[in-house]
C-alpha cells in the first residue's frame, strides 16, 4: 500500500513538473531554471557537508570556472558547447586535486577558512585576468546551448534540460551515498579515528569528494553561462559560495534529495521577500535564522517530523 502511495505521489510530482511550463508564468519558469542550476551546484557542497563533514565555501570558484570555460571556448574559440563543458569540468577537477590535496589535510574551521580563501582568490583572479574573463565588463554573446541542432533558447526548453540533469546527478549521488563510499564517508564524518583504523584512506576520499563537488559546480556554471548568455565577475563572488552552502544547510545536510528543497528555498524565498522593498535581504536573513532554529534537521527533517506527528494523530 505504501509502495503504491509512493508511486502515485512520484507520478503526480513528475506530472506537475512536466506541466509546469504550460501553467506557470515565464518568470516562475526562469526561477525554476535557476533552482535547477543551484540544485546541481549545491549537491556538491551538500555531499561534502552532509556526508564528509566538510564546509566548502569555494563552490563559486568552480561555478565560475565552468561558466568562463564555456564562454571562452564558445565565444573566443568558436568551438562547440560540449567542449566548454568538458574543459570546465576538467579544469575544475585538476584545480580541485591540486588545491584539495594539501588543503584537505585541515579540519573544522581551518578548512572552512581555507575554502573561503580559495573563493576570494578565485574572485580576485576573475577580476584581474580581464584578458580571459572580461573583468567587470564580462563576456557577452554566449550562444544558447544546442544539442543535435535543437536549441535550448527559451526558459521552458532550458527547464526541460536542467532538471533531468539535476535528477540524474542526484540519482548518482544517492547511489554513491548508499554504497560503500557513502559508508566510508559517514564513518569518516562521525568517527574519524575509527574509520582510519578500519582502513579508510580519509585524505584520498576527501579529495575525491572535493573533485566531484568541483565538477558539479563547473557543470552548473556552464549551464548558467549558456542560459543567461552573459557572465561577469559579479556572479561568482563569495556571496554565491555562501548561497551554495545554504542549500544543504537549509535542506538538512545529510539528505541528498533534500538539496532540491534547499535550492528552491534560496531561489524563491528572496524573490517572494523582494516585494517588501529594500528590507528583503534582512527578512531573508531572519527567514534563515527561523529555519535553522526551528528546524534543526533542516526542511527535510522538519517535513519528516510533521509527517510522523500527523501519522501518530491519525492513528
Amino acid at each position, binding site marked *: 500500500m505504501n509502495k503504491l502511495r509512493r508511486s502515485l505521489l512520484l507520478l503526480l510530482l513528475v506530472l506537475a513538473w512536466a506541466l509546469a511550463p504550460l501553467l506557470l508564468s515565464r518568470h516562475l519558469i526562469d526561477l525554476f531554471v535557476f533552482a535547477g542550476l543551484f540544485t546541481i551546484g549545491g549537491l556538491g557542497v551538500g555531499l561534502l*557537508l552532509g556526508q564528509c563533514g566538510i*564546509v566548502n565555501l569555494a563552490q563559486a570558484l568552480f561555478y565560475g570556472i565552468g561558466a568562463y570555460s564555456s564562454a571562452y571556448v564558445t565565444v573566443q574559440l568558436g568551438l562547440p558547447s560540449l567542449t566548454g563543458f568538458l574543459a570546465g569540468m576538467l579544469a575544475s577537477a585538476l584545480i580541485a586535486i591540486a588545491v584539495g590535496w594539501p588543503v584537505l589535510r585541515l579540519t*573544522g574551521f581551518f578548512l572552512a577558512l581555507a575554502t573561503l580563501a580559495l573563493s576570494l582568490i578565485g574572485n580576485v583572479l576573475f577580476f584581474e585576468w580581464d584578458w580571459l574573463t572580461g*573583468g*567587470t565588463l564580462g563576456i*557577452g554573446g554566449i550562444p544558447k546551448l544546442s544539442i543535435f541542432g535543437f536549441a535550448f533558447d527559451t526558459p521552458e526548453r532550458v527547464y526541460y534540460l536542467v532538471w533531468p540533469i539535476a535528477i540524474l546527478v542526484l540519482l548518482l549521488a544517492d547511489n554513491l551515498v548508499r554504497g560503500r563510499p557513502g559508508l566510508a564517508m559517514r564513518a569518516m564524518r562521525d568517527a574519524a579515528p575509527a574509520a582510519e583504523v578500519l582502513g579508510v584512506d580519509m585524505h584520498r576520499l576527501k579529495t575525491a569528494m572535493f573533485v566531484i563537488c568541483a565538477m558539479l559546480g563547473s557543470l552548473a556554471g556552464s549551464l548558467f553561462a549558456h542560459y543567461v548568455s*552573459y557572465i561577469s565577475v*559579479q556572479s561568482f563572488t563569495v556571496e554565491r559560495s555562501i548561497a551554495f552552502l545554504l542549500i544543504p544547510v537549509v535542506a538538512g545536510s545529510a539528505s541528498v534529495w533534500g538539496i532540491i528543497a534547499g535550492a528552491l528555498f534560496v531561489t524563491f524565498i528572496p524573490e517572494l521577500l523582494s516585494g517588501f522593498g*529594500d528590507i528583503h535581504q*534582512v527578512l531573508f536573513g531572519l527567514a534563515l535564522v527561523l529555519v535553522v532554529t526551528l528546524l534543526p534537521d533542516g526542511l527535510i527533517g522538519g517535513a519528516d517530523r510533521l509527517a510522523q506527528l500527523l501519522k501518530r494523530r491519525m492513528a
Partner: protein
Amino acid sequence: MALQACRSLIALAPTALLSLYPLPALAQTTASREPIKLGAVISATGAIAGVGLPEREGILLAQKTLNARGGVNGQPIEILIEDDASSPDVAVSKVNALVHSHKVKALIGTSGIAQTVAVGGITAPLKLTQIAFSGLGPAVERERTCVFHITPSQELNARALLSYVRDMKASKVGVLHDSGYGQVVWNSMKDLAGEFGVTWSQVEKFEIAATDLTTQAAKVRASAPEAVIVISTSPMPFRNARQVRLTAPIISVHGTATYDYVKAMGDAADNIIHAEFLIAEDPLPHQREFVDLFQKEHGRLPKHFEAAGWDAVMSLAQALKTAGPDAANEALCSAMRRPYQGVMAKFDFSAPDMGGLTLASFNYSKLVKGKFTRLDYSAAK
C-alpha cells in the same frame, strides 16, 4: 560539528545584514486609473546601492511630477521598480518578470554595466526600449539599438579627465585605479596618452575591495606627477593619497561626485576636481527646476545620479507622447531616437552610442569644504 558551525554562522546573519543595510526607501508606485506601466530595475542593495538609490529617488520624483502634470497625454504612468541587489543574475530574473509577466512598455535601468549587458539580452531581441544608467559597454551593445545610455561611455569619461589634465598643462600624470570600474575606464584611457600629450608617471591598480592603498598612493607620489587621476568607486584612494601628502591636483570621474562619497572622504575631499554633470550648488538654467523640486521633496541637494533617474523617465515620457501609449516596441524605440534636453545634459539618443553625450556635456567642479564649486572650464573649448 561542521553543520553546527554553519548554523552558528547563519545565526549571526541578521546582525551582519543589518549593518550592511542601506537606508530604506518608500514603496514605488502610484495607483491611478489605467496607467501606462513602465518597469525599472535598479541596484537598491548590494555593492552599487550608492548609485541605485539616488537613481530611484530621481525616478520617483519624475513619476510624481509627471503624474501631477497630467501624465502622458492625460494618462498617468506607473513605474514598477525592482531591486537587482547589484547582481546581473537577479537583474535578468527581474527583467523577465517585468517584461513577460507585467508587460511593461519600456524598461528603465539597470544601474551597472554588467547588469545592463545581461538584461540587454532580453530587451534587445524584443526591440523593447531600455534606458540604461550605464554608458555604452562591450562591443555587443553597439548592436542593441533600443538600449539607450544616459551616462557616458568609458572612453568619453577618459577623454573628459584627460582634457582637463592637458589644459592645466600637466604632462606627467599618475593614475590610481581599482580593478573593477577603474580598470574599465583605464583600458579606454591608456592609449589616449599620445593624443592628449601626457605621459604616465606611475599607474597603480588596486583590488576593488581594498581598504588600504597607502603603498600604491606612495608609489604614485614618488613618481612626482603634475596631476593624479583617480578612477574608483571607493573613497579610500582619496584618503590615502592625502595621507601620504600627495599634493598634486587630483582629478576624478563622475562616479565619486556624490555627497555620500564626499562624506566618506572626510577632509581628503577638499580640492578634488570632478568631471561631472550636475553642480546643484550652482545649477545651470535647465537644471534649476529639478534641483528646486528635489530640494523641496527631500530637503537636500541632488547630484547627477538623481538627475539620471529623472531624465530616464522624462525622456521616455516624451517618446510615449510622440509614439502614443499603445505604440509597438519598435515605434517607441524609434520615437526615442532624437535629441533630448535633460537635466544632466543634452542627449542625442540617435547617436551611434545611443546617448550622444559629448565632452561639452561635462561640467567641472572642485570640492571646497564638502561643497561642489563650479570651475570656469569647459572641455569643449
